[in-house]
């Protein structure tokens, strides 16, 4: 099941620098379908930079990221059509409602799923604030509104999530972990970082430690 053909995301000898500081070097992995990669490391070890490099946002100093065996740098649009990245920033506009924000995100990504927006908010307990401007939402509500994107982009095989569990209560954490497990079970690939040591897919999770 993990033959070379089913490798989705791979990295070869990545090295990244921030300013003049070398964050990490010689990072290589190959992530097949149906598996998760948990990136760990202390603050400043370059977890976020690695995730951004995997997305194609940051150009690694050395090395290459490949998606389905093809260099990401040369096939950006096709790669991005199969990728969801949620970073530190919520990518929510304070002046728009969560619903408007989500519709914009779906339009930008070319996803269909607008019909399920209301149902997703219902499931995440956001139905009451779906029509309030984001600026009036609590930190946890904002997080959930940002994560709602995942429920609507399930067709995309690769999810790269930077600290998805931050600022979530126990119930939302369990819901999200369930979604991530379902994604991996369904043959998707997942790369994420977390401080909470949450293994969403036990037995199918690789671990990558930066800065040891």
């Amino acid at each position, binding site marked *: 099941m993990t033959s070379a053909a089913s490798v989705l995301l791979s990295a070869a000898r990545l090295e990244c620098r921030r300013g003049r500081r070398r964050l990490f070097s010689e990072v290589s992995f190959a992530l097949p379908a149906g598996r998760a990669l948990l990136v760990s490391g202390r603050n400043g070890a370059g977890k976020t930079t690695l995730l951004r490099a995997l997305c194609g946002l940051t150009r690694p100093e050395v090395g290459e990221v490949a998606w389905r065996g093809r260099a990401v740098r040369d096939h950006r*649009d096709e790669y991005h*059509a199969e990728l969801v990245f949620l970073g530190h*920033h919520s*990518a929510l*506009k304070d*002046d728009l409602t969560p619903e408007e924000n989500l*519709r914009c995100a779906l*339009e*930008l990504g*070319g996803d269909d799923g607008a019909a399920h927006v209301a149902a997703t908010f219902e499931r995440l307990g956001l139905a009451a604030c779906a029509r309030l401007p984001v600026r009036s939402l609590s930190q946890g509500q904002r997080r959930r509104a940002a994560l709602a994107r995942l429920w609507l982009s399930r067709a995309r095989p690769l999810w790269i999530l930077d600290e998805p569990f931050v600022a979530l209560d126990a119930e939302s954490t369990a819901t999200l972990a369930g979604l991530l497990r379902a994604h991996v079970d369904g043959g998707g690939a997942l790369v994420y970082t977390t401080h909470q040591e949450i293994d969403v897919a036990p037995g199918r999770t690789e671990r990558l430690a930066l800065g040891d």
Partner: protein
Amino acid sequence: MWRALKGIFARDLALAWRQRADVLSSLVFFVMVVSLFPLGLGPEPATLRAIAPGVLWVAALLSSTLALGRLFAGDHADGTLEQMLLAPQPLAFLVLSKIAAHWVAAGLPLTAMAPLLGLQFDMAPADIAVLTATLALGTPALSLIGAIGAALTVGLRGAAVLVPLLVLPLAIPVLIFGAGAVDAAEAGRGAGAHLSLLGGLLAFALAGAPLACAAALRISLD
């Protein structure tokens, strides 16, 4: 892709509408700068007529440069810009759609306001028509050129000071042909040549600026 472009355009316009105080303040800035000149130079109608094209154009240039700060800064701060870079559409087109929305919120009000200010400067109706036409052609070019500067300075500390420094020299041709057209019309030489050059500049900026902006944004978010 069309849906994504329309989505960005509509979202930015909705945002501009919800933050209309910002739009209004750069418009007020434009009116104020223009109004300062009669106070500084005296209310002699002949003088005012002579300086009107230059004054209105310089004020429009400054005001649209001032508005550039809004173009990418908000999107950068909340992470939307990152998502734009990760969208499966060519970034240059997405940027173009943002610039178009920015122009509607910043350049179009200036163009609409200009005839009123032209009356204050005792300009003839025909010259006011030419002035409005030059602004209609010139302010989109200014937005396009300015967007490059805004994209290069996204997230930098000194961005507010840096953007005019980068953009104003590049915008000089637009200023020259814009103000020159009105001058020519006032002098009875006909503004056709100026207007077509201005149109040429706009076409050139339309073709080149989105690409430069896209490259600059990828560099700035690296």
